[in-house]
């Protein structure tokens, strides 16, 4: 790679190095064009898609196909496709904004995401010239629709355990595929599937499979709990005839495509979850203003204010951290040379670089979404349980997000696993940092933050990083090679890391906003930051304590606990008061506001 990439922020490095606010991308950095793109998408979804959702929920998928075509006419399918193949070659931020706004429509957002993301991207990123020429122009307009077929009945998270096989025919012209791919989004109408199969039963590879190829068919439409407005079917391959030129990437290297596409899918899902959560708040707050009990609007009750402000502070964290990650991608991908882009390898390396951030964004944001829709239903009371209220659908639609694109458990396990791998490979000086920290902690005196805004939150972020390193170092030292069996500790550490990343993201974003617009205009952001950091830090403390107790005992444990106590010593923020204050603007605007 060129020397330009040397200045780029390394994946996972936020735990080890501090960055300035001008090194992170925040939503306040959106360009005018990006804001316009978001608006066009939102207007399109609200005016054109939402009225169709009741029909889509009843599986009237000819409407989905029409909507995708009209989305294509507006350019909403071509963001990630290069211009020479009929796309718009937009930046990653624009592409993320489209995904965020599409998510307003629930299952249709999934339809869109499966098409432009996991469906089309393997060809964009790993296709050869002929494949790009042949497929991308029609995918960019929506004339053809794409799907992604990885999961099988017996292999979900264990993707490489796929049983679908491919065998070259005797003439050497076609691969013959046999197997079943399960729960394939868009399968009801997709024209092109990216399918994974093992050549000769052992070489995991990717193929572009057209619906019209002999031997390709789909099963019955699944009856799902949520995202009913997206099509989900089994893709059946019975002696399916796939021309040899439709092999995608190299033989036996399908996992490179699969895992990198998954990484992108993950952060995009984090973006989508953000969009869904904003929408949930946008339908919930007006309800709390209209609905009266005891002759008082629900929004006048302090407990309602508490709920609304908590939801919004979590949303702020989800938004700040996911766009920070998007910014990292944009920064790195935009520096690739044309040659590197076409080679595929550098692209894969760029994506893999931020695997940790992708996993964090996936599980953190989908759980924010789940929290927000759950409280959204709660604030609707009994009406929230009725399907005529949008929040009921949002609640059902949310649930799958914690399962697909790698369950949240798998994504949590990946965090420490990836850190340890990066440390062993020498990509990140994790162990050095841990050792330096252990020395530092012997002499540690608790800090007293200053009075200036964000001083306390910065201290919490700082100490949160130390706690994460302490816990990760302890786990690695204590369990050695067996550490992977300590899944509970892995999960605790992943949660600590996710909260640290989110806390740092909100602090930097708010700091940037204060520097630019002053304290007064950034007050809502400051409130969210104070609320979120306090609550996240409480969680960090609990996760750390549980981890220490599981890993150590006796005097060593007592020493560790005392270190943790020093690292967690602070005068807590009065979050009840902060939430009441933050709720005022939210209840007035009837939506997530800053």
């Amino acid at each position: 790679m060129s020397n330009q990439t040397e200045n780029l922020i390394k994946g996972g490095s936020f735990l080890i190095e501090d960055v300035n606010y001008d090194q992170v991308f925040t939503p306040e950095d959106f360009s005018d064009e990006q804001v316009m793109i978001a608006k066009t998408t939102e207007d399109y979804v609200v005016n054109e898609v939402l009225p169709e959702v009741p029909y889509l929920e009843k599986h009237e998928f000819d409407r989905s196909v029409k909507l995708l075509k009209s989305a294509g006419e507006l350019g909403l399918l071509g963001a990630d496709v290069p211009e020479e193949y009929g796309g718009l070659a937009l930046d990653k931020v624009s592409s993320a904004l489209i995904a965020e706004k599409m998510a307003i429509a629930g299952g249709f957002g999934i339809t869109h995401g499966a098409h432009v993301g996991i469906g089309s991207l393997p060809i964009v990123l790993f296709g050869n010239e002929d494949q790009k020429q042949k497929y991308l122009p029609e995918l960019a307009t929506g004339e053809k629709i794409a799907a992604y077929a990885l999961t099988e009945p017996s292999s979900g998270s264990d993707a490489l355990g796929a049983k679908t096989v491919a065998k070259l025919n005797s003439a050497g012209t076609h691969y013959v595929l046999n197997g079943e791919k399960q729960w394939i989004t868009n399968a009801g109408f997709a024209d092109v599937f990216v399918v994974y199969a093992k050549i000769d039963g052992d070489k995991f590879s990717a193929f572009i499979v057209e619906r019209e190829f002999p031997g390709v068919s789909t099963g019955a439409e699944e009856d799902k709990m949520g995202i009913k407005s997206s099509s989900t079917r089994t893709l059946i391959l019975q002696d399916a005839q796939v021309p040899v030129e439709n092999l995608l990437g190299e033989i036996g290297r399908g996992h490179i495509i699969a895992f990198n596409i998954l990484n992108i899918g993950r952060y995009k899902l984090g973006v989508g979850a953000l969009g869904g959560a904003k929408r949930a708040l946008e339908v919930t707050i007006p309800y709390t203003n209209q609905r009266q009990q005891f002759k008082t609007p629900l929004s006048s009750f302090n407990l309602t204010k508490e709920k609304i402000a908590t939801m919004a502070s979590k949303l702020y964290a989800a938004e700040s951290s996911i766009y920070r990650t998007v910014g990292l991608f944009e920064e790195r991908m935009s520096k690739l040379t044309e040659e590197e882009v076409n080679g595929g390898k550098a692209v894969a390396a760029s994506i893999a670089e931020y695997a940790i951030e992708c996993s964090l964004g996936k599980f953190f944001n989908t759980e924010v979404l789940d929290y927000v829709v759950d409280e959204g239903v709660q604030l609707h009371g009994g009406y929230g349980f009725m399907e005529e209220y949008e929040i009921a659908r949002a609640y059902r639609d949310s649930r799958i997000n914690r399962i697909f694109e790698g369950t949240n458990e798998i994504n949590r396990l990946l965090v420490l696993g990836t850190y340890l791998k990066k440390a062993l490979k020498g990509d990140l000086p994790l162990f050095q940092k841990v050792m330096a920290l252990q020395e530092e902690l012997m002499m540690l005196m608790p800090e007293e933050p200053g009075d200036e805004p964000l001083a306390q939150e910065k201290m919490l972020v700082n100490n949160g990083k130390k706690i994460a390193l302490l816990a990760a170092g302890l786990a690695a030292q204590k369990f050695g090679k067996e550490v992977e069996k300590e899944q509970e500790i892995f999960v605790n550490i992943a949660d600590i890391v996710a909260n640290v990343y989110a806390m740092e993201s909100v602090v930097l974003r708010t700091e940037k906003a204060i520097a630019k617009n002053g304290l007064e205009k950034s007050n809502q952001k400051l409130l969210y930051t104070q609320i979120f950091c306090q609550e996240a830090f409480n969680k960090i403390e609990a996760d750390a304590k549980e981890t220490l107790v599981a890993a150590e005992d006796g005097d060593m444990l007592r020493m560790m606990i005392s270190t943790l106590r020093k690292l967690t010593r602070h005068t807590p923020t009065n979050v009840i008061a902060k939430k009441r204050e933050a709720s005022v603007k939210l209840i007035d605007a009837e939506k997530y506001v800053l």
Partner: protein
Amino acid sequence: MNIFVLMKRTFDTEEKISISGGKINEDGAEFIINPYDEYAIEEAIQVRDAQGGEVTVITVGSEEAEKQLRTALAMGADKAVLINTEDDLEYSDQFTTAKILAEYLKDKDADLIIGGNVAIDGGSGQVGPRVAELLNIPYVTTITNLEINGSTVTVVRDVEGDSEVIETSLPLLVTAQQGLNEPRYPSLPGIMKAKKKPLDELELDDLDLEEDDVEAKTKTIEIYLPAQKQAGKVLEGELADQVKELVSLLHNEAKVV
């Protein structure tokens, strides 16, 4: 065909509006293209696509209006002109705006000028007709259909819900009523192209106008929100009794009969 659109940046009246210090609070307000001007832009684009020519969108205002001009360019207009009065004028009214626009337009050989029938903020509906008057060209307001055949123009005008068909000729100024068309979304390719389209910025000086030439003819004395609507009363009981009660309420409480 040389087409001009008169556009205004307004706050979104669907959002909550608050007033402080006798002014509408712009903090946190959302700003949009005046919705009636969106019809005007759409119509201009459609006429250009059918007849050829060029669409120029003009606004009088501050630098902030650049966003709305870019949106118009993203919808498909060819050029945009911002007449920036921020530094020159503290207060302006419909006369001011019309005078500036007419001064700009007088040597532009406009065939067709389209504006919104009314702006949703000020709501005067005067700027279009005043510009036509100053340019000495015919105008038709609140139009719902426009057909151009050579220099003959057939316009359907909305008259309080009825339609009036008017035949007139170019050059012409019309103002758009809801129903004229369905404004398009700025497409993503349109948004990207808009970046490169010309957006000129002028000041009064560039039009050889002095502040006195455009001094407002009116003064705004006060701005206030409509009074909070009181909860209504639902009468119950026999119909005859309800009528009696209603009459007595109108007479004694509301004191309107």
